């Protein structure tokens, strides 16, 4: 049932895309039609699969690292008053720095291998996770904090047993955003310099005006994003069963 709905969704989107191309008469090198892309997808299946594997592993490692680091930073921010003052501005600035300014530094320190790409993906994922969790940690029900205080809980214990679980819904929200932006993080990482990955393939295809291949790669990337988002959403809702939730991403009919 859900699979069927997904297929219908896909079909409608493809038709809309086709109609758009057809109606606006956009040239192939600006926006190829779905048929051309499907053709490119099929012709380059092997190539795409190979580059997709690279990108996927970057995404997954980046997501894991970003979530870990983000969680750690948010906890640090929430628990150490000093950290808040010093780290937060730094964090915010980190989001405003375009990759090409950092690229030589990253390459110098991490080389041209996987590490620099993962670092970029991590950086992209890091911020939404950190702010979302930090925001959640800021907003613990005061009654619970009072309770913990009278029970003689240390700050660390309150954080771990009360504030953190209470902020998990906010963290989940951040992770959902992170899951959706993780693919672009990996692709940006590949701009730092690489010889494989979907980002590499896309830049390449773009420069060579192989626009149908570019869109085929985009399609794969989009599929990753949706799959990752849906998986994360399902997982998170399973992990937080006590949460009220009126609309799930994969709701039943």
């Amino acid at each position, binding site marked *: 049932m859900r699979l069927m709905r997904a297929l219908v969704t896909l079909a409608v989107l493809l038709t809309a895309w086709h109609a758009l191309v057809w109606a606006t008469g956009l*040239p192939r090198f600006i926006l190829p039609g779905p048929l051309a892309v499907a053709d490119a997808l099929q012709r*380059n299946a092997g190539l795409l699969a190979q580059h997709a594997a690279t990108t996927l592993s970057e995404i997954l490692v980046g997501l894991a690292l970003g979530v870990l680091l983000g969680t750690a930073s948010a906890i640090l921010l929430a628990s150490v008053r000093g950290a808040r003052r010093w780290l937060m501005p730094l964090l915010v600035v980190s989001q405003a720095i375009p990759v*090409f300014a950092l690229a*030589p530094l990253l390459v110098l320190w991490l080389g041209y291998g996987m590490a620099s790409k993962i670092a970029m993906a991590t950086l992209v994922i890091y911020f939404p996770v950190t702010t979302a969790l930090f925001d959640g940690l800021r907003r613990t029900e005061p009654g619970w904090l009072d309770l913990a205080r009278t029970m003689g809980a240390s700050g660390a214990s309150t954080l771990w047993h009360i504030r953190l679980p209470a902020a998990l819904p906010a963290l989940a929200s951040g992770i959902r955003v992170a899951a959706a932006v993780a693919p672009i993080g990996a692709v940006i990482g590949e*701009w730092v310099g*690489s010889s494989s990955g979907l980002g590499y393939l896309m*830049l390449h295809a773009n420069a060579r*005006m192989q626009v149908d291949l570019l869109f085929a790669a985009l399609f794969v990337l989009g599929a990753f994003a949706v799959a990752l988002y849906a998986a994360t959403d399902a997982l998170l809702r399973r992990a937080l069963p006590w949460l009220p939730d009126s609309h799930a991403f994969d709701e039943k009919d």
Partner: protein
Amino acid sequence: AQDKLTVLLDWFVNPDHAPLVVAKEMGFFKDAGLDVELVAPADPNDPPKLVAAGKAELAVSYQPQLQVQVGEGLPLVRVGTLVSTPLNSLVVLADGPVKSVKDLKGRKVGFSVGGFEDALLGAMLEKAGLSLKDVTLVNVNFSLSPSILSGQVDAVIGAFRNFELNQMAIEKHPGRAFYPEEEGVPAYDELILVANKAQTNDPRLPKFLAAVERAVLYILNHPEEAHAAFTKGRPELNDELNRRAWADTLPRFSHSPAALDAARYARFATFLKARGLIKEALPVDAYAVTLK
């Protein structure tokens, strides 16, 4: 034992890099006792920095950029030449209204920021009796051909004559190129190899250049086999566009990669100084050498 050598390309692998790729694929580097790794960055400005920082031995760069970078104090020297003519050109639609550089007056010119497009265009416009004030420059980043094909700009500067022209032809909108060296800009080497200034007596470098020279000659003598070697394992480089670009690039490879035309560099330095891109024209041997 093989000596490891890291070479940073200026961009993703493309036919401009044929001699390097072929030398690697055909084992010429290995024959010279070198284990060469070719690394492709996404930003052409990074490789010179990384070579200057000692992260790699060699980088593929451009003569004008080198002269600007040296002016900014980067410890770099040219040690070899890959493509010994300019590739950069000003491109318009063949059937468009711009028949000569003069016709650009009041029009939009797209460019992908390389650092000296305005200098190039300025010189070309001045020869035609115009100036930079007569056109609007728009950064279109990596979308040179699409921006002109879709009519967003009337011309693009920074298009490679071996590439963008073919691209446009394939899209059935052939382009017309104005060549800088015919429009008032001194000729220069488009693609060169740069090394760190402190490393000019690295014994691996002459061996490397010798292998590159061998590859250039091999490409000239055996174009079919060379092309097969070039596309081996890189199927995305074996399409119509890349095949055409391959053919157009072949005659432009320097037949003598190690050779240096110092007068050409001096001439171009004067040009750059006149356009305000460098403060002073350094002596050529400060940044370009012929290895012994």
